[in-house]
């Protein structure tokens, strides 16, 4: 585990590596990698966090950003993906503090792939803008966002898939789902597809709302109480993010952290 307290350029080693960001001041970090790398980045504290990543041609890189901060964070990120490279980014946002995040991903060269995904347990303001831009032909961008919004939560996501002219045979797909259980919360999802090329595939799916009464009745008719049903649904929405990085020890740790959070619902 590497502690990060100052501005740094970090070259990811092959395989799994782990970082903890903790700073009372703003930070500016750059990550870059080639080959197959998986990074787990726990954010303890940092008021303004600027992150840049570079995914080299042919590389296969995954980042899991785990927000553990109990103070507000504003993150501004840009990610560059080169030819035939794969970039996967996931955000675990299950902390009890405000987050404002602006993510920009550029699929810069042929064959680039990017996935941006998030799992949010919103009890505070969680405001995200994410934009994945296909700049080159044969590129694929995906966004998958899942949120459980609780009382006091204010969940907002603006997910933009953009394919520029000339980026033919490209794809842009996105899914966003928010589950809300109680009064006194606010959820908003804006799915956007901005397409300036004919030969493309694009899709978006979005759902937002309470658990349906009929679904609840179905779960209850099998013996689950309202609270148990809510926990079960939340587990289904949030738990998959703990499997994002291929490291058994980490998976176990995140799983028990998440279980603890869901058990408190």
């Amino acid at each position, binding site marked *: 585990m590497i502690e990060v307290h100052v501005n740094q350029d970090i070259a990811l080693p092959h395989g799994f590596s782990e970082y903890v960001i903790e700073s009372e001041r703003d930070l500016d970090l750059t990550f870059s990698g080639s080959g197959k790398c998986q990074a787990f980045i726990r954010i303890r504290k940092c008021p303004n966090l600027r992150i840049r990543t570079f995914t080299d041609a042919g590389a296969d890189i995954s980042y899991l950003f785990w927000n553990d901060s109990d103070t507000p964070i504003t993150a501004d990120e840009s990610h560059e993906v080169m030819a035939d490279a794969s970039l996967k980014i996931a955000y675990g946002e299950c902390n009890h503090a405000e987050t404002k995040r602006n993510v920009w991903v550029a699929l810069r060269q042929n064959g680039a792939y990017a996935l941006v995904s998030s799992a949010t347990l919103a009890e505070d303001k969680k405001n995200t803008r994410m934009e994945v831009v296909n700049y080159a032909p044969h590129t694929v961008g995906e966004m998958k966002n899942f949120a459980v919004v609780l009382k006091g939560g204010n969940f907002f996501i603006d997910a933009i898939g953009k394919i520029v002219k000339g980026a033919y045979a490209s794809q842009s797909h996105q899914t966003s789902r928010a589950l809300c259980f109680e009064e006194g919360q606010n959820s908003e999802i804006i799915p956007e597809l901005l397409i300036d090329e004919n030969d493309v595939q694009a899709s978006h799916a979005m759902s937002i709302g309470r658990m349906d009464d009929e*679904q609840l*009745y179905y779960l209850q008719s099998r013996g689950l109480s309202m609270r148990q049903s809510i926990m079960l649904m939340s587990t289904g929405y949030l738990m998959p993010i703990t499997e994002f990085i291929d490291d058994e020890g980490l998976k176990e740790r995140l799983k028990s952290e998440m279980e603890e959070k869901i058990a408190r619902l």
Partner: protein
Amino acid sequence: MKSLMIKDLHVEIEGREILKGVNLTVNENEVHALMGPNGNGKSTLLAAIMGHPKYVVTQGEIEYDGKNILEMPVEERSKAGLFLAMQYPQEIPGVTNSDFLRAAMNVRRERPIPLFSFIREMERTIKELDMKEDLAHRFVNEGFSGGEKKRNEIVQMKLLKPSLSMLDEIDSGLDVDALKIVAGAINKQRQETGMSLIIVSHYERFYELIEPEFTHVLVDGKILLEGDAELARKIDTEGYDWIYKEYGITPERKEEKPVPVSIGTCAVRETVEKAVGK
């Protein structure tokens, strides 16, 4: 002995009375066929026993195992041993079958079922119902075919081991082979656990496989006729007309549903017709 006792049950949905005084007793290890023309209250009766929030009991009693279940929330009725295999099972995206079933099994146990035992039991049941192996990892009923949904209800019944199961047209949507598999699984569970059954089905074929000892015919919210298995057979071959005749009943004509029209088109036509002075 666990018995279900229903006395003078009246049930409303959205202010309309559907059940108008139903009496029914189901003892342990008994199989009852519930028949009757569509729209006469069969599903309503099962839903009211299970406790669907839309069905309001305005009069009467339901007791199971000596307890007044009308005072129990839905999940408590389930834990008391009641199970309803639904006509239209819900889809729950985001929740896998295995997480769902494990949670449902654990609420009726003192200690959670060990993961390994659960997987073994689930796999065995999936095999018994001849379902695809990936069932455990799929979201509850999402993207299932009609027949798969029905079989998944029976998978749940097998794992939750109720003492009284109500099957609401579980056989519709099943092909002949699947019907045999489902009936076989139900019969096996009856032998193993002494589970009693209330079965709603329109088809004699299913009753031949499960062999009900009692038949009840529900017409216009009341049980009009009761008998043994022979009655179910007679209804299958002759329909309900002879019952109407014998009891001097004129079946209620269902209201004609208005044909949906596009308001836009009508408004335009009306305006035009007015303008030309028709």
